[in-house]
C-alpha cells in the first residue's frame, strides 16, 4: 500500500496587492512629508481651545523659553541667505559662503547674538546641539531681535509670497510675562500688530453652563 502523501500547499502566497498598497503609502508619505525642523530650544507651550491651525509655511517663529531667552526662526528657504547677509552687514559681521549654507539649517530656530553667529555656523550640526545658546538680545540697548524681524518681513514682502510673514510667538508655559510683552512691544513699535500665539489643542468646554 502506498503511503498517503499529505497534500502540500505552496507556502508562497501572492504578495502583489500588499506590495501595491505598501508602495502607494510610501509614495504618499514621501510626497507629503515635511521634516520637523530642528528646534534649538525646548518650549512647552500652554494649551488653549483655539482650533486655528498654524499656516504651513511663511511663518516667523519667535520662541521664548522659561529662562527668558528669545529665539528667532524663519522657514522660507528663499530668504534665509539674504536675511543673514543683510542683518550681518548692519552689525559689520560678514559670512563666508559655507557659513551661509550652514545658516539654512540653523535658521529655523536659533538664539545667538550676531557676533557669535559665525562661530556657531562653523560647528557641525552635532556639535551645535551641545552649544548653549544665550538668546537673541532684545532690549533697548542692543536690539538685534527687531532687526531680524524687520529684515525678514521686508524680504518676505519681496519674495514669492508678496506679503509679510505670519508672526508666531511660541512661549513656554512658565515663561515670564514681561519678556513676552517686551517682545510684543518691540514689534508693535514697528507696526506689527497681529500675532499668533502657538498653543496646544485642548477640548473646548461648553460655555454658559
Amino acid at each position, binding site marked *: 500500500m502506498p503511503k498517503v502523501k499529505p497534500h502540500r500547499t505552496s507556502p508562497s502566497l501572492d504578495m502583489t496587492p500588499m506590495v501595491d498598497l505598501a508602495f502607494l503609502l510610501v509614495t504618499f508619505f514621501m510626497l507629503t512629508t515635511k521634516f520637523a525642523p530642528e528646534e534649538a530650544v525646548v518650549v512647552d507651550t*500652554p494649551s488653549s481651545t*483655539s482650533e486655528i491651525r498654524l499656516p504651513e509655511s511663511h511663518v516667523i517663529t519667535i520662541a521664548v523659553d522659561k529662562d527668558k531667552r528669545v529665539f528667532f526662526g524663519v522657514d522660507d528657504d528663499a530668504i534665509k541667505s539674504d536675511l543673514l547677509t543683510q542683518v550681518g552687514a548692519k552689525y559689520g559681521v560678514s559670512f563666508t559662503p559655507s557659513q551661509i549654507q550652514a545658516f539654512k539649517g540653523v535658521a529655523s530656530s536659533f538664539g545667538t547674538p550676531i557676533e557669535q553667529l559665525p562661530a556657531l555656523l562653523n560647528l557641525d550640526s552635532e556639535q551645535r546641539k551641545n552649544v548653549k545658546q544665550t538668546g537673541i538680545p532684545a532690549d533697548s540697548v542692543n536690539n538685534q531681535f527687531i532687526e531680524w524681524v524687520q529684515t525678514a518681513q521686508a524680504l518676505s514682502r519681496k519674495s514669492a509670497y508678496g506679503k509679510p510673514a505670519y508672526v508666531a510667538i511660541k512661549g513656554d508655559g512658565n515663561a515670564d510675562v*514681561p519678556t513676552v510683552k517686551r517682545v510684543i512691544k518691540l514689534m508693535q513699535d514697528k507696526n506689527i500688530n*497681529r500675532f499668533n*500665539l502657538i498653543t496646544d489643542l485642548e477640548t473646548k468646554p461648553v*460655555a454658559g453652563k
Partner: protein
Amino acid sequence: MAEIQQSGDSGKGGKKRAKKMSTKIDMTPMVDLAFLLLTFFMLTTTFSKPTVMEVAMPVKPKPGEEQPPIKASNALTLLLGENNKLYYYDGLLDGTTKPELKLSNYGADGIRKVLLQHKSNPQLVVLIKPDDKAAYKNMVDILDEMNITETKKYALVDISKPDQELIKSSGL
C-alpha cells in the same frame, strides 16, 4: 529563493525547446524595503500642526490723538498674580474710589462664571493686567477664557503700581 526553473535539456535528439522562465519573482526583499520606507516616513511625518491663538494688538495711537476713556461702569479688571492667582474687581482704580478686590481662579467655576455674569452688559470692556511675576500660561489661559465666553472687547494692559498695592493690601 528565486524560482527560476530551468527545463533540463534532457532529450537526446529531442526538439530544442525555448527555455521557459517562470514569471514568479520573489518579492520578499522588495516588500521588506517598502515597509521599511513606509515606517520611516510614517514616523518622521509631522502630523499635527500646532494650533494658534490670534491676537491683534491695537495700533499705536498717533501723537496728539486721544484715546476715548473707558467708563468705570463698563470696566472689569482682571489682575493675574504670581503662583497662578487671579484677582478681579469691577470698575476702574483711581485716586478716589477703591474697588473691592476679589479672588478667583482659572477653572471653569472661577473667572468664567464672573465673565458670563458680566456679559449682560454689552458695553463691557475687560482689562487684563498680568503682573510681572505671572506666568505666560496664565496670560494664554485668560485670553482663552475670552474666546470661550465670547467676550469681544478686551485689552492687555500693563499692571500699575496702585494695582500691585491693592493686591498686597488685600491680603488675598
